């Protein structure tokens, strides 16, 4: 087999492996305790999660406090604080406020 073909096939296998492993990331679930809209950015805080969840968008999301959500994202350091930059977000349900 020509060497270029071999390297090409191995590259494809590597790319596929990265894609498959990326798809199997553990999502984060939790109840929203705060949601802040600022310039092109939405910051969400979850009840059971210490890191801030960030979405870079200027859209208004159909989310409110006490909504249960599931997110997939990536950890990033900003000003020495760990944040999760959200790739995918989905609303699971809305928990009524107990108070």
């Amino acid at each position: 087999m020509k060497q270029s073909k071999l390297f090409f096939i191995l590259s494809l296998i590597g790319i596929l492996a990265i894609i498959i492993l990326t798809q199997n990331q553990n999502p984060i679930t939790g109840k929203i305790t705060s949601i802040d809209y600022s310039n092109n950015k939405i910051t969400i805080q979850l009840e059971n999660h210490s890191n801030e969840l960030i979405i870079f968008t200027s859209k208004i999301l159909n989310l409110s406090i006490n909504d249960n959500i599931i997110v997939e994202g990536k950890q990033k350091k900003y000003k020495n604080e760990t944040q999760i930059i959200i790739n995918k977000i989905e609303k699971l349900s809305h928990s009524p406020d107990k108070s």
Partner: protein
Amino acid sequence: MLSLILAMFLGIFAGTITGLIPGIHINLIAIILLPFLIAIQNTTLAVIFISAMAITHTFIDFIPSTFLGAPNEDTALGVLPGHKFLMQGKGHEAIKLTLIGSIIAVISLIIIIPIFIFTVPKIYPTISQMMGFILIWTTILLILNEKQKIIPIIIFLLAGILGFAALNSTATQPILPLLTGLFGSSSIIYSMKNKTVIPEQKIEKLSIQKKEIIKPTLTTIIVSPICSLLPGLGSSQAAIISSMFSKQNREQFLILLGSINTLVISISFLTLFLIQKSRTGTAIAISQITQINPSTLTTVIITIVATSIICIPLTISLSKLFARNINKISYTKISLITLTILITITIIFSGIFGLLILVTSTLLGITCIELQAKKSFLMGALLIPTIIYYLP
């Protein structure tokens, strides 16, 4: 005053180290050092350190990319421009040409600043809305410039898929293994595989006429500001696009490459001040340390000029050192040591997943060289994710 000078010299030292290690990007070092720089609580010292480090890196980083990882002449299409000079015993000449470019960049910066301050805040909102389409058009231009189009398209798309997957993976600092593999380790492994023999390097006076410098200077002044607003576009792509509009010989191309490399970093500090956005990690690091204002910007510009003055003899000395010794030391040994450093750095900063990205991007980089496509198409790894981000 002494502490300010010390900060600059420490920045120059750090930039020299990062510049000499192939694959290490200045953005990574800026991110790693950020917690320490915040901790010293002296923003001026931190700003001087980062800007000195960034500028030094742009002067020095052509040395390893020219002297290391040279493939044999059969793959002339895929090699980096400096390698052609190296294989003719003119590696030092290539470095001096990029150095001329870097000096032009610093002088051009003084001309560009007032124009930029006046125009960028007005045009950026429009550019930002059209960014995805501008980048697509830029890519089409790059492909149209090729005689053989299918292979560059395949390489560009594969690099894009790899980049998109890597950037969305759990690996920390995924850009490090991605770019290291595509541009660093792939060239090194390929040159080892082909048992490249580096000819004796000549250290001669540069024979370039002053009028030959005018063309790349003008091109730099026009192209670099545009390039500094377009994320995902490297200095090589910017140089290729510019040479499509204004034909440059290979000496002029290296000058252009050096000038765009330095000017894009310099302008990134300016864009941060003007539109609070920047395409370089070093400028972003500064934004996380302090609010960039006219005083910070002045400090950065003075540091850029002072650092450049020191970097001229420093780059020449280091280049001479490489040129005199590159054919005396076993090229395979140097390559093996460099590869070990790159793998270690990847594992430390990006973990095991990072290693998978490094291996895959290295394989794709080798495929690109084997298929004789220009390595600049591998920048699809950053361009495609950027295009996807900016498209409405």
